[in-house]
């Protein structure tokens, strides 16, 4: 004799009304899920941004280039933590240095330059040296690199947007190059230009800034031993997003002074144009020295966040290089010449 299954309890029985509506319930559930998923993922797509660029492989420096030790600190101190040429602060990871960049010629988002850098071809590359010099010339980057030994400089880099990094650059002092070009007595300033080529730097198709990007330094700033032309970082050649193949690094100034992918250096008599200064003169000065006491109109410069940190830290006068460079600005009102 077979036993019949136990009849279900009354509470388990689907109410008739609900049984009759089952198709409608399933339809509602599907509509709920579909709408929630579409709306939610639409919002994420619209506002999610910030895709992280994938890590990139850098090339070793051109063969034959060996990094020389940095010069001893001025005043003959021993290589202690106080060496301005090599800070002993923790270095910002290579991945952050090469994926979080401002280089509008390769896009406006921080991740754009790393993603789009392949359009920029760092070889062959010619630089023009002209203006108030006795030896104007065009020169191939690989010839230029044979003129000077490459040194490692570990500098703080403070962006005007209140974030900062510590970057081990490879480069040579700009002052050595200028000496070799033999400036005339009329040379008071140095003017720099980035490559202007919409094929290689397609961001130049947009009119967000005046192209090419130009920058300038006073000649004493340019001759300062801290000022370098960098050709690499972390022991490798510069990547496009960092301004390959050669860029300016002035560690006591905001990052935007560090003009990238240089093709022209001219010694000039009058203060040259600087791109951001021209774009928004009230916000970005020609000098752009890191100064915690002079605020940007839209944010305070008193603090900064080192990439990788959560807590902010106080910003140091001249980005911590005051002992080395403060004398360049003796007697100047830094609120006026910001």
């Amino acid at each position: 004799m077979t036993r019949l299954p136990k009849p279900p309890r009354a509470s388990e029985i689907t109410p008739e009304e609900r049984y009759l509506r089952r198709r409608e319930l399933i339809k509602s559930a599907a509509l709920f899920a579909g709408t929630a998923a579409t709306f939610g993922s639409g919002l994420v797509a619209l506002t999610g941004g910030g895709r992280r660029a994938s890590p990139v492989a850098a090339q070793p420096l051109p063969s034959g280039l060996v990094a020389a030790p940095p010069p001893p600190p001025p005043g003959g101190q021993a290589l202690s933590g106080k060496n301005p040429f090599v800070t002993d602060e923790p270095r910002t990871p290579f991945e952050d240095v090469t994926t979080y960049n401002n280089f509008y010629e390769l896009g406006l988002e921080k991740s754009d330059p790393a993603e789009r850098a392949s359009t920029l071809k760092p070889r062959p590359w010619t630089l023009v040296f002209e203006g108030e010099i006795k030896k104007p010339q065009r020169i191939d980057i690989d010839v230029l690199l044979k003129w000077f030994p490459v040194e490692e400089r570990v500098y703080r880099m403070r962006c005007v947007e209140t974030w900062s990094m510590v970057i081990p650059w490879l480069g040579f002092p700009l002052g050595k190059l200028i000496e070799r070009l033999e400036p005339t007595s009329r040379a008071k300033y140095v003017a720099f230009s980035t490559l202007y080529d919409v094929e290689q730097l397609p961001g130049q198709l947009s009119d967000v800034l005046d192209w090419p990007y130009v920058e300038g330094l006073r000649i004493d700033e340019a001759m300062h031993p801290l000022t370098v032309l960098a050709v690499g970082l972390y022991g490798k050649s510069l990547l496009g997003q960092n301004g390959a193949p050669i860029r300016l690094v002035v560690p006591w100034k905001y990052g935007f002074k560090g003009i990238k992918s240089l093709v022209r250096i001219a010694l000039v008599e009058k203060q040259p144009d600087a791109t951001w200064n021209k774009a928004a003169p009230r916000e970005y000065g020609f000098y752009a020295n890191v100064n915690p006491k002079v605020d940007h109109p839209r944010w305070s410069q008193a603090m900064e966040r080192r990439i990788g940190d959560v807590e902010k830290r106080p910003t140091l006068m001249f980005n911590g290089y005051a002992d080395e460079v403060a004398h360049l600005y003796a007697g100047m009102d830094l609120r006026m010449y910001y």
Partner: protein
Amino acid sequence: MVSPALPADPSPAARAQKKTSGKLAWLVPAVVTGGLFPAAVLLLRAVRKDLGSNPIAEALNQLGLLALVLLVLSLAATPLKIVTGWNWPIRIRKSLGLLGFFYVCAHLLVYAVIDQALALRAIAEDVAKRPFILVGFLGFVLLVPVAATSTSSALKRMGFARWKRLHRLAYVIAILGVVHFFLRVKKDATEPMIYAAILGALFAVRIVSFWQERRKSAQ
């Protein structure tokens, strides 16, 4: 003759009404779930350290943008109904507005608690000295009473006319949001201008419909 003992058959109109609301019962939960989805994604990415090199700035940007998008969407409900005659946008208007408020609060909290580490002096200085922060803060302050009176009991308590007047602030708040965004960007103002254009279009629909109503009632 119909026996009085039998339950009265609901009128076809009432039945249709009930059916519609039953049919759309999934809509508000779906909007709220979908609206909270980006917060969950953001939280997950933050926990996995997947927000890029400057995660705090990234979180601030995303939360601010989400707040703006949702507030603008909530303002789009009425114009959408005017243009299409659909009723469902009105049903999700409150949810969209409250989701916007949720993201405004999250944006402000990340700024105050994580970015500024609750340094009240620095925050007060920011609000006083930087127009873009002042404008954003003002938007938040105005949004609080609007969000607090979003319940139907608040509507009853206040009376419809007063309630409606207060809730017109939503437009002012959205404009403040766009201005906050506009003052924040460094150079490329395309994105804030897109939001400004959308707000302008929504305004235009309301103004045109207001005139049409007035002409109709004047005739």
